[in-house]
């Protein structure tokens, strides 16, 4: 079956498994370049972000989605041919156990662990208890998984009922939504910069420098927000529409930007929920603080954790997120109530 451009199914199938642990986002960058061919000019920057520029006469609008996925780095190879690792992002040691790790050259290994002494819970393990079962002896393992090798938790896309399941949905689902929105958009009344950020799992490093370089007048960040676990008091539900972020660690919504998002949701007939969380963060905080500061909208796709590395995302939420972003991109910039302080354009060679 031929899928129309901007089909989420097709985008997810391409983006979810693409190789791209933090700082080594080669595969997903190439996949995005292919998907976005002909839409605008793409380039890679110093931290590995992929930029897409669709020039326009309006104000500079920045659209952001992280593209890296949780990974591991080999810290030493042991005598038995196993390899000790550190985690690059992700949710902690316990959740990584049993994952297959995919390396850039196609090698695979399995995340195993030292069984904790009796009385200690598996959930309390840290990465020092993890190791890679490589299947090789020491000599071969040292050659194939040398110290510093970076791998990604292998991601397989599954459809379970109405929901998508994969370990890289945070934030490949967001990246797919952004790509779909760009592909489906008509004329955009902005000078649009899209950044698929690198190293978000390491503390929004790509977002920090990427947004600084673009100097946007407004930004929209599309992320995943895990909700609905037992301990979480958040009233957010899967399937009830995308969340608009009000507050999370390092981020608080900008009033005018928030209003714009609310109006766009109404116009697009997209039901929305609100995200307020004490823990957890996204690229939104880094973008919000970039340069002289950027009015930023955070759109978070509700997701559920599963105990392992996988996330579940409702297909309807994803479609509605795309609708919302498309509408935001089509909404003409509001007149500014207060003129922004004029800062001379930095840098540039």
């Amino acid at each position, binding site marked *: 079956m031929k899928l129309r451009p901007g089909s989420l199914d097709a985008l997810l199938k391409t983006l979810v498994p693409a190789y791209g642990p*933090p700082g*080594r986002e080669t595969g997903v960058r190439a996949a995005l370049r292919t998907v976005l061919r002909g839409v605008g000019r793409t380039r890679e920057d*110093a*931290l590995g972000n992929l930029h897409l520029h669709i020039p326009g006469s309006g104000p500079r609008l920045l659209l952001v989605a992280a593209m890296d996925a949780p990974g591991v*780095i080999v*810290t030493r190879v042991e005598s038995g041919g196993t390899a000790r690792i550190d985690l690059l992002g992700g949710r902690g040691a316990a959740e990584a156990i049993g994952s297959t790790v995919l390396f850039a050259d196609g090698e695979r290994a399995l995340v195993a662990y030292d069984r904790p002494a009796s009385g200690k819970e598996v959930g309390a393990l840290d990465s020092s208890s993890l190791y890679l079962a490589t299947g090789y002896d020491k000599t071969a393992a040292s050659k194939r998984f040398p110290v*510093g090798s970076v791998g990604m938790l292998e991601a397989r896309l599954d459809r379970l009922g109405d929901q998508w399941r994969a370990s890289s949905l945070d934030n490949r689902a967001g990246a797919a939504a952004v790509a779909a929105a760009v592909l489906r958009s008509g004329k955009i009344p902005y000078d649009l910069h899209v950044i698929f950020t690198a190293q978000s799992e390491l503390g929004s*490093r790509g977002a920090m*420098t990427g947004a*600084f370089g673009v100097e946007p007048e407004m930004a929209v960040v599309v992320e995943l927000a895990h909700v609905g676990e037992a301990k979480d008091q958040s009233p957010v539900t899967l399937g009830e529409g995308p969340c608009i972020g009000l507050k999370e660690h390092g981020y608080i919504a900008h009033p005018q930007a928030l209003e714009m998002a609310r109006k766009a949701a109404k116009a697009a007939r997209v039901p929305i929920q609100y995200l307020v969380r004490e823990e957890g963060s996204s690229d939104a905080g880094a973008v919000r603080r970039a340069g002289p500061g950027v009015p930023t909208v955070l759109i978070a796709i509700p997701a559920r954790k599963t105990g392992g590395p996988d996330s579940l995302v409702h297909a309807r939420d994803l479609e509605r997120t795309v609708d919302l972003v498309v509408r935001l991109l089509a909404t003409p910039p509001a007149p500014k109530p207060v003129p922004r302080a004029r800062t001379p354009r930095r840098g540039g060679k």
Partner: protein
Amino acid sequence: MPAARVAKRSGAPRFEEHFLKAFSNADGPSGWEAPVRELIVGAVRDNVDRLEVDAMGNLVARIEPSGGRSRRGAPHVMLCAHMDEVGFMVTAVEKDGRLRFRKVGGIDPRILLGQVFRVGQNGARGVVGVLPAHLLTNNDMNKVIPIEELFLDIGAASREEALQAISIGDLVAFDTTYESAGRVRKGKAFDDRVGCAVLASLVQKRPPVPVTAVWTVQEEIGTRGAAAAARRVAPDLAIVLEGTASGESPGVSPEEQQPRMGGGPTITIQDRSLMADARLIDLLEKTAKRRKIPTQWKRPGVGGTDAGRIALSGAGVPAAVVSVACRYIHAPAAYLDIRDPQRVVELVWHALESLRKEWP
């Protein structure tokens, strides 16, 4: 083979050991790097095109490439080493003349008891007091005394007498003198005076690409100097020169004994502050192979350097770290193998040569 002969053949500058000796013997805990900076100024003044001290206290030197500024496409490289060392600060003086003090930077509290220190600019000597045996309980003997409970004794009989020799706020450095034995050199603050000396040696010769050499301040208390310097220099890429902790130690499994003192330049792939630029690592690896310079990897996941800060400055900067593996850093006396800094000079020099030809 003597280092000097290797250097002559390869065209790289020679590592100047007398820089290391002078820089190591000077005191410069974070925030108080002037004595070290003055020595570096003296060492590089005649060989650079422009030299300035910025508002943070970083020493910034610009050197145009051999063959002139107009080299098309050659990237502007920031080479960086930090001048500060871990130390202490005097926070209060007791009535009886003994000093209370706090850490400046990361220091293992287990190494403090009985150590001799230099306090303040006049170099007053002080020793960290130990309770005499007849006052020590069995319980206290087996515990590490937190720094808040320790005192530094400069031999003053009263607060007034102490304040004639030192001031509250004075910085405190290990009282260690540089020495040689075979290939091993002993000294304090090799993290990062060895990087400072490598960088000062590198700029003795006009580099193949435009270079801004920066000796930074306040690395040990949060890479603060580098943040300001990187914004101002705005380089195309950065290589940070460091002294890092070696892993070899009796009783540690062979796999964990990395990197090794004397094992050649140590290259960082990832630490808590940085995911090193893949192209730069590739460049360093290839250069080392071509020049037959042994290299080793720093254990990923630990530590952090100025490179992390530089990488995130402005719109982002590709960055890497090349270090000399030293035993016992952040402690009174570190060891290094004198072949290693020479190899770092060669590796970085030849990497700069490759950059002249090719940097995408």
